[in-house]
């Protein structure tokens, strides 16, 4: 098996999730009842037997560090390889690199020291369950310089507007990368590249004062370099706005969408919290809802997602909502189209109703 090292590059990801990203970066946003966005990116790597993963963090990375620790949840707390969270802390006055090249440049030791021959770079906004070993096989067979991963979507939703799309020829060679609406081949912010070639491109980018490795170092080089397109066929969600976060969360309640993301042989791993099983009382009434452990439910919940340790008192009614860790909903409160961040408390009888297309969002630790 070929050795691959992974980089999760958060440098150019904007924190567009409003209240949810006031205090944390997008990669650290809770998603799917017990996960954080970045869990999918890391699990994809470890499930592809990648044993060395660097995270290029730029802003609001504190909760990311708390969550990832030394990578124990992914068995990445290793002497050789393992997980490296790399916040910006460089103090070299001679450093001329800019943008995400600062990360590549100042963390070049990660690339130098890895025993892997190939590097996979991904972001955190494309939720999926991909095997990079398969992608690497195709990359090697194609003889390409770089292989980018894409998903052919049925329909362009708002979140896809901002994403890059690919034009591809009959041999799956990329002919253009653009933001046009003409293509439904959504580039998933993932590419595979040989280590030595990556190293070469980084040096060139820095020498030319580039500030965005993918745009300046790869996209701008078309058609001089051979970029192959690898099609990903599984479950996929792009989360880059509050609206896409809310809509794609709801998609998890569809058993088929759910099964495409969560697989026994390629599990999504996350930090263990040791919560008790969830408790449903005699008065509870729950339907079409995803419930994480440690919840105590006495009220009515439908079409919602409850994170760990949520308490819902008797008479409370929750619809189409996402309730994060340790929130408490007191009796007879009514929530509809609402997203509560962690540790919120909604007091007795309170009613909060948002619109399906724009949920009502409450920042963490609020009592209302």
């Amino acid at each position, binding site marked *: 098996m070929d050795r691959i090292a992974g980089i999760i590059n958060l440098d150019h990801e904007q924190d567009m999730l409003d209240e949810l990203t006031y205090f944390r970066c997008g990669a650290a946003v809770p998603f799917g009842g017990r996960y954080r966005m970045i869990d999918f990116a890391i699990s994809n790597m470890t499930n592809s037997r990648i044993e060395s993963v660097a995270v290029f963090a730029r802003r609001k990375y504190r909760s990311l560090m708390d969550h990832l620790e030394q990578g124990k949840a992914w068995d990445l707390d290793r002497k050789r390889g393992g997980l490296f969270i790399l916040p910006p802390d460089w103090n070299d006055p001679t450093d001329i690199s800019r943008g995400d090249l600062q990360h590549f440049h100042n963390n070049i030791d990660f690339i130098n020291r890895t025993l892997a021959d190939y590097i996979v770079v991904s972001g955190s906004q494309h939720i999926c369950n991909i095997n990079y070993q398969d992608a690497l096989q195709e990359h090697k067979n194609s003889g390409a310089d770089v292989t980018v991963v894409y998903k052919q979507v049925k329909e362009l939703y708002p979140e896809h507007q901002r994403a890059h799309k690919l034009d591809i020829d009959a041999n799956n060679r990329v002919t253009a990368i653009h933001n046009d609406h003409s293509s439904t081949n959504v580039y998933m912010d993932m590419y595979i590249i040989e280590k030595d070639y990556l190293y070469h491109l980084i040096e060139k980018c820095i020498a030319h004062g580039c500030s965005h490795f993918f745009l300046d170092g790869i996209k701008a080089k078309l058609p001089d370099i051979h970029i192959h397109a690898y099609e990903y066929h599984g479950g996929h969600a792009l989360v880059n706005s509050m609206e896409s976060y809310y809509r794609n969360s709801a998609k998890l309640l569809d058993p088929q969408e759910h099964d495409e993301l969560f697989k026994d042989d390629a599990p*999504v791993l996350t930090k263990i919290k040791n919560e*008790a099983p969830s408790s449903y009382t005699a*008065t509870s009434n729950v339907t079409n809802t995803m419930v994480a452990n440690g919840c105590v439910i006495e009220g009515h919940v439908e079409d919602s997602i409850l994170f760990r340790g949520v308490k819902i008192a008797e008479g409370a009614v929750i619809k189409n909502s996402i309730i994060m860790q340790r929130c408490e909903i007191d009796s007879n409160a009514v929530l509809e189209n609402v997203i509560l961040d962690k540790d919120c408390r909604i007091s007795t009888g309170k009613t909060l109703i948002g619109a399906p297309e724009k949920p009502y969002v409450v920042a963490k630790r609020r009592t209302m």
Partner: protein
Amino acid sequence: MKNKECVAMLLAGGQGTRLKSLTKQIAKPAVYFGGKYRIIDFPLSNCTNSGIDTVGVLTQYEPLILNDYIGIGDTWDLDRKYGGVSVLPPFMEAEGGGWYTGTANAIYRNLKFLNQYDPEHVLVLSGDHIYKMDYNAMLDYHKGTGADATISVIEVPWVEANRFGIMNTDEEGRITEFDEKPDNPKSNLASMGVYIFRWDVLKQYLLEDAEKENSSHDFGKDIIPSLLYDYKKLMAYTFEGYWKDVGTVDSLWEANMDLLKKDPELDLNDQRWRIYSKNPNQPPQYIAPTAHVRNALINEGCRVYGTVDTSIIFYGVHICESSIVKDSVIMPDVKIGKNVKINRAIVSKGSVIEDGAVIGDPSPDSEITLVADEGSVLAASLATHT
């Protein structure tokens, strides 16, 4: 290397034959409980919560499963460089070797293990009980009274006292007499099978006991009586709280049902005294539009399309439409088809219950139905009491 103040030895040897086929392939301490746990999670979590970071697990029977479950001990924060949890199966020695012949013999055979840590005290635990207990508080009491040994006791109803090992004590709590299942109990303080010994004292008695040909090498039958006979200072430490022996199918079912009571005595959500358990790392449970769930504990990875009433559902269980699970305990990864009716039953891990099966007797005083060996398939036509 520094010595350890107190090392715990957990007697996990019991085959637990009263649990019938539940323990056919696994030792009793590995039996499932409470939707998520195995029995051994309770004493191990108690240890780590009490600051005791060195635990030997003495296992007689099928060590591989416990070995695999315990692993490097990280589940209970017991993956320590020095100390941590060690599984101690019977082993072969230059001068022979063989089965542990009694609870005291199991400790005696692991003297070398204990000597490594040169502890001042040894905590002896059994792996058969569900309870949360601060062993450190008991250790403080043990040290404060200057006892040679301290035995944890719990008040049981007088009418049941004849089913337990009863400690008779003086007004200071010093144990004067030990009555195993007395016909006419003088006290209702039952031993919980939790002992703390001064290691120098215990070692001496273990060495002496090993020489005795007619000894059964048992703590209750031999070591404790010898200590009492020699007027050693044995103190009773009274524990208050939930404590339950889950040695039979009925008591295991009852202990599970206790968790469904309003404000259960055993709080599993206490953040300051977590019960740690190996995590199956599955997605959150999904309760479908067709589901009815009331009075239940449900764990991750479950998918519920049917009705769950007053039941405990472990991880990875699927319950299809129009099925009803009532007053039952469904162990991990059980797949329940459509139109199944389960009443007052315990269903073993990995069982597959086919469409239309009817299991268990709904009448309130009926015997609890135990379904089958791990991983068996139960067709509708075969569904009977087993």
